[in-house]
């Protein structure tokens, strides 16, 4: 099992969600986060003072998938989330030791 963490532009959430549903991904978790890679932030003015905001709002989407589905999911996310500009985001993959369904104690890929 592989955990897939995708940090994407907030405006791309709907497209990415739909793309994942289309390839059969059934579970995901969505978080509102702030961060930056190489993208510069913006400046705001309050009462004449300039503030640099370099932590930009993003969406983090997490899903744990059977290894067979991972590459299809990566492609789906990349296609839906790419705009071609700096700030599109990143996808991280990591190994998951186990998964447990709380409702009925099912384990392993069957719990996904």
């Amino acid at each position: 099992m592989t955990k897939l963490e995708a940090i994407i532009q907030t405006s791309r959430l709907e497209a990415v969600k739909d793309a994942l549903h289309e390839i059969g991904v059934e579970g995901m978790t969505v978080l509102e986060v702030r961060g930056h890679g190489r993208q510069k932030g913006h400046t705001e003015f309050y009462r004449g003072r300039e503030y640099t905001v370099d932590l930009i709002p993003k969406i983090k989407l997490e899903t744990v998938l059977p290894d067979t589905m991972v590459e299809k999911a990566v492609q789906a996310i990349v296609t839906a989330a790419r705009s071609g500009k700096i700030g599109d985001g990143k996808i991280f993959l990591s190994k998951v030791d186990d998964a447990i369904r709380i409702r009925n104690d099912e384990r392993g890929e069957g719990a996904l």
Partner: protein
Amino acid sequence: MAHRLVLGSLLGLLLACSSLYAQSAPAPSAADSARLARLEQQVADAKGSADNAWMLTSSALVLMMTGPGLALFYGGLVRKKNVLATMAQSFAMMAVITVLWGVLSYSLAFGSGNAFIGGLHHLFLHGVGAQPDSDYAATLPLQTFMVYQLMFAIITPALITGAFAERMKFSSLLCFMVLWSLVVYSPMAHMVWGKGGLLNAALGGRFPCLDFAGGTVVHVTSGVSALVCALYLGKRVGYPKQAMTPHSVVLSFVGACLLWVGWFGFNAGSALGAGTLATSAFIATHFAAAAAVIGWSGAEWIRNGKPSALGAISGAVAGLVAITPAAGFVGPMPALLIGLLAGAFCFFMVATVKARFGYDDSLDAFGVHGAGGTLGALLTGIFAVSAINPIFKDAQGSPLPSGLLDGNAHQLLNQMVGVLIAWVLAIVGTLAILKLVDLTIGLRVSEDEEVQGLDLSQHGEEGYSWEVTA
């Protein structure tokens, strides 16, 4: 002989006719005199009712300026962890100053005393009832006058809280404000508005200072005291490197609009009646606020490239501050000019001067109230005209020129005296009180408490409990 008879009888006829006319307009009977007297009383009562209705409304409007006007305005400007504490500081004034005023400080401000302070005659509001005091307002119950002035006494110390936002102990705040109200506000109010006051323009003060609704009494004293507090208490932990942006400009926006509307009670109510002077002050107030929005936003647009909402509402407040001393003395066009100048000037104070000198006047109490009030008080000396308000009269009761453009250049000097006294009283009084409170119970919260936030550390609560748990 015959024509003399004719003349004589003609004369006699004329006399008879004229005496008949005299009889058809006889001297009023006792019953008629009583009716006339009752009618005159009813007319006076009706006029008094109109004045009293407006003044009670104005009192409510001015209270609304503190709560929720100022509470929201300041509350939105601080970080989320300090929102309740900031609002509580204004709210506490509504409670504490009210008691203090009723027990003691009304008497100190408006009782008879000397040129600098009133006496103790009105302790516990003794003698303050339904009867008017014609020195202050001939058509109002003295109680109405007292409660109207109370609302000013409430908001003035509340304004200072902007200077030491996010770092003052609540207990120290309460001690400081009680002392400040007694040592700075009451004497200043007495000097400008109280009978025998040194600066009282309406009651023959030695240096008659034109201050219609409190440019010096409210804004200069609080604004300058704010600066002293900001310097004495020092900067917030992390200032200025750490960004400390308003957590909700939306709240500040609502607060500012409430301040604008409430200010009609503050300025137009200072006419102490429902007549044409109130209308004039109402219009001057509104026009100054509008022009100041344009002044501040225009300056900001040029300097920063975008006009912010926070800047626009700050501009409005700056204009309202500046027109406060002038509202009942100037016409609408000068009010526009005063507002425009105040908007641009206060933007400069906040955006440039504060950064250059590096003091942490967190919510710009000095930049807007101290600076705006000073500017407004001086501009009053220029633009005040007797045609709007014949405040100065000669021995025969004819109006004398008010301000510089009216032909009285000397008034500008009197305005400077008033402003200077306000500055000195604010600086000396505030320093002394700060020192006293600091030596006894301390002023600032600890660094840990400041980082944790005043809502939790001072009040044990959170402003927004938007928790994850259901």
